[in-house]
């Protein structure tokens, strides 16, 4: 294999007595793209956090260009030429692009303690050109889209002349076009001599970008080699530790014809227009649309988080007026948002408390009487066990310590305690690994089998085709077409999503 820019030499790391990295030795190749894959909790992020100076290894060492490398802070790593582009971007939205880039080392006007704004502007302009973001350096970051913000992070990496750039799940909030632009940029960075580590659950992307691929499982390196030695199936088998015969669990039940959610002509100016559909008991109804098609906005309206001007909603046959989250819950609706970190979970409190949040009132006779703790925790423990939430003591450990897939399961568990009649689930598998995806599909299947109507919103067409009974295709805030399972055909669905003539 090629010459290494950075070497992990038997590194180990534990958190709360759990060994997360079990003696990993890995070479990061110079001037190439290393694809790093593994399930959530396999240790990818921890390994990269060692490199980025976020954590220090318990045992073992790192070598950078052959010399010992032991960063104590992220700025040490930056000074050594290592940039870490996190999944959640690290930008200050109230500051300008130029200020963000120079935040930890502002250039000054000679002997004055003043910022040298013209110098900052000129340098920033140069970096922005290098990442092909054509906006003014004085633009506030809050005005930029997620894709543009990411380019600012990359521009920042260029500003300290990073030789190694780590990307952790960079495409989760990007549109297709922004993703394409990012890939071209990564390829250009590589041809300019930078070394790239690319972490992603989207294996075709890894196959496309990477020169070498390394697979982690349970804190160990299970394979590392040139891309040619891998196929997507082999990567999955290595990640999971067994071959997965199927990506989607088989349906064990059929939808009924009893409506649970009837939506008639829902409209809101500028957002959605004339949305009409019916969801049946035990049915999994997919909603497919590209970014900005109005799918998530529709979900928020149905659950009563945003208003609508016109139209009618009926839940279980009863008209449902003046929607609000509380009333939706009382009517038997549940909503798993696309944004589990900000909207789905209270990151700093215990797993059990998060799961119990929605159903809590049911465990006390009245608002001011004591919660029946025993029944409360027994049922929470049961739900957590039935979903196989892994990652520690339910009542002690904060949700933020869980891996992405397990966090998502905690969000779902929160709603299962209430045994909903309608489950609206938005992008449940984003940033979640293959194994956990399968588990989430199984949970959805089980719910449908138990009679819940599931509205499954996703931008991944394959998973909708694999899981749903029926599919609505949205674009421009309207339902463009409806397909039943025997009509599922990728090309036709995509054509509808792109607002071309579907029928």
């Amino acid at each position, binding site marked *: 294999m090629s010459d290494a820019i950075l070497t992990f030499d038997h590194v180990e790391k534990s958190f709360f007595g759990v060994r997360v990295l079990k003696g990993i030795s890995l070479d990061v190749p110079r001037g190439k793209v290393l694809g790093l894959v593994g399930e959530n909790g396999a240790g990818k992020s921890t390994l990269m956090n060692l490199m980025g100076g976020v954590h220090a290894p318990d045992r073992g060492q790192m070598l950078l260009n052959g010399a010992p490398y032991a960063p104590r802070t992220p700025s040490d790593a930056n000074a050594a030429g290592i940039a870490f582009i996190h999944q959640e971007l*690290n930008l*200050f939205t109230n500051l300008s692009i130029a200020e963000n880039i120079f935040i*930890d080392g502002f250039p000054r006007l000679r002997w004055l303690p003043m910022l040298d704004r013209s110098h900052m502007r000129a340098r920033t302009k140069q970096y922005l050109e290098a990442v092909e973001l054509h906006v003014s350096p004085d633009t506030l970051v809050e005005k930029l889209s997620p894709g543009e913000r990411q380019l600012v992070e990359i521009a920042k990496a260029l500003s300290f002349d990073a030789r190694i750039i780590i990307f952790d799940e960079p495409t989760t909030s990007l549109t297709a076009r922004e993703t394409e632009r990012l890939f071209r940029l990564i390829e250009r960075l590589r041809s300019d001599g930078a070394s790239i580590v690319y972490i992603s659950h989207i294996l075709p992307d890894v196959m496309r970008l990477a020169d070498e691929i390394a697979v982690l499982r349970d804190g160990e390196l299970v394979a590392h080699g040139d891309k040619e030695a891998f196929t997507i199936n082999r990567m999955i088998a290595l990640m999971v530790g067994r071959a997965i015969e199927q990506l989607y669990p088989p349906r064990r039940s059929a939808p009924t014809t009893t409506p649970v959610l009837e939506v008639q002509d829902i409209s809101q100016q500028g*957002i959605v227009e004339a949305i009409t559909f019916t969801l049946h008991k035990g049915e999994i109804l997919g909603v497919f649309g590209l970014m900005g098609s109005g799918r998530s906005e529709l979900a928020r309206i149905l659950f009563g988080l945003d208003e609508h001007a016109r139209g009618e909603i009926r839940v279980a046959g009863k008209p449902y007026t003046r929607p609000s989250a509380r009333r939706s819950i009382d009517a038997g609706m549940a909503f798993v948002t696309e944004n589990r970190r900000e909207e789905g979970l209270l990151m700093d409190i215990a797993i059990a408390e998060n799961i119990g949040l929605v159903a809590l009132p049911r465990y006390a006779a009245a608002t001011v009487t004591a919660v029946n703790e025993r029944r409360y925790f027994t049922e929470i423990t049961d739900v957590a066990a039935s979903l196989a939430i892994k990652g520690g003591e339910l009542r002690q450990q904060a949700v933020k310590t869980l891996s992405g897939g397990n966090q998502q399961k905690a969000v779902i568990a929160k709603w299962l305690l209430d045994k909903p009649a309608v489950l609206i689930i938005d992008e449940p598998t984003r940033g979640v690994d293959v194994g956990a995806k399968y588990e989430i599909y199984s949970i959805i299947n089980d719910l449908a089998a138990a009679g819940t109507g599931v509205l499954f919103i996703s931008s991944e067409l394959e998973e909708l085709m694999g899981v749903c009974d029926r599919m609505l295709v949205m674009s421009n805030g309207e339902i463009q077409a409806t397909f039943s399972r025997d009509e599922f055909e990728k090309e036709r669905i995509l054509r509808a999503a792109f607002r071309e003539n579907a029928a």
Partner: protein
Amino acid sequence: MKTTNRQHLAQLALQNTSLLLFIVVFVVFGLLAPRFFALQTFETILKQASYIGIVAIGMTFVILTAGIDLSVGSNMYVSATVAGLVMQELKAPVWLGLLVCLSVGMLFGGVNAFLITRVKIIPFIATLGTMVAGKGIGLLFSRSIQIPYPDSVLELGSSRLFGLIPLPIVIFLGVALAAQLVLTMTPIGRQIYAVGNDAEAAKKAGLSVGRVLTSVYIVSGLMAALGGFVSVAQQGVVHPGFGEGYEFNAIAAAVLGGASLFGGVGSVLPGTLLGAVLIQMIQTGLIFTKVDIYIQPLITAAIIFSAVLLDAFRNIQLQKLRRRNIRIDKGALVGAGDD
């Protein structure tokens, strides 16, 4: 076209609520009591607003980091007391008295900073504690007795720069200008905004969050002491109740001026300056219009509440105006197939 213009206007108005409120209050009081429009009145308002304004400038630094400093009133009392005693008992000259006053204020701020960054007590509780302790220390020094300042200080307080502008106003405006320059033009200023926006991200970006927080609490302490001195220079004595409740006015001035208690948003110029003058203008206006003295605090509170309410409303509206539309009008569809 008409609607976009109206929307634009609405957005502009919402972004300048404190200025609009300022003008409304000014005009209303002016119509009720024409004497209110006199230049002399405005000078009095500015002069009386100066010391709370200076304290509020320090408070703005703290609030920008999403913190709070409840101890400024006690700080004013302690630093003014110690300075007064030094001048009275040791016959120290005025410049030394001022220096002692400012040093005590900074030390006070330093204690807050230590409790918050090292002992890791949240700012609300840390400064609530030093508010009580500070008052106690001040009373221990003063034995609850009024402390007179030398006449030279009083003369200073009523002097005018070039015989024209009262010195307290000059100090107030000078401090505001300097503070605004620090906030917008210096590295530490921009880092204060960064920490207020996202302290975790600031840590990851390699900023020393502890250093930034330490500096804002020391600035707040310094400004409290300076504000206290400017106030005593107008009154001549430090009475035992001096400084009590001033933290409320200082926080209100910063918030009225547009500072967000969640951090990262706000300014000294025009923000806090406007807020401090607005509060004083309301209080002076109520006296001018001869409103029942027992109703005055209620009206002041009502105006402050409505300003904060307006601010919350503004944020919601601004968010709505900024929210992008998903649907494209059928007419505009041609050539806009780009999502």
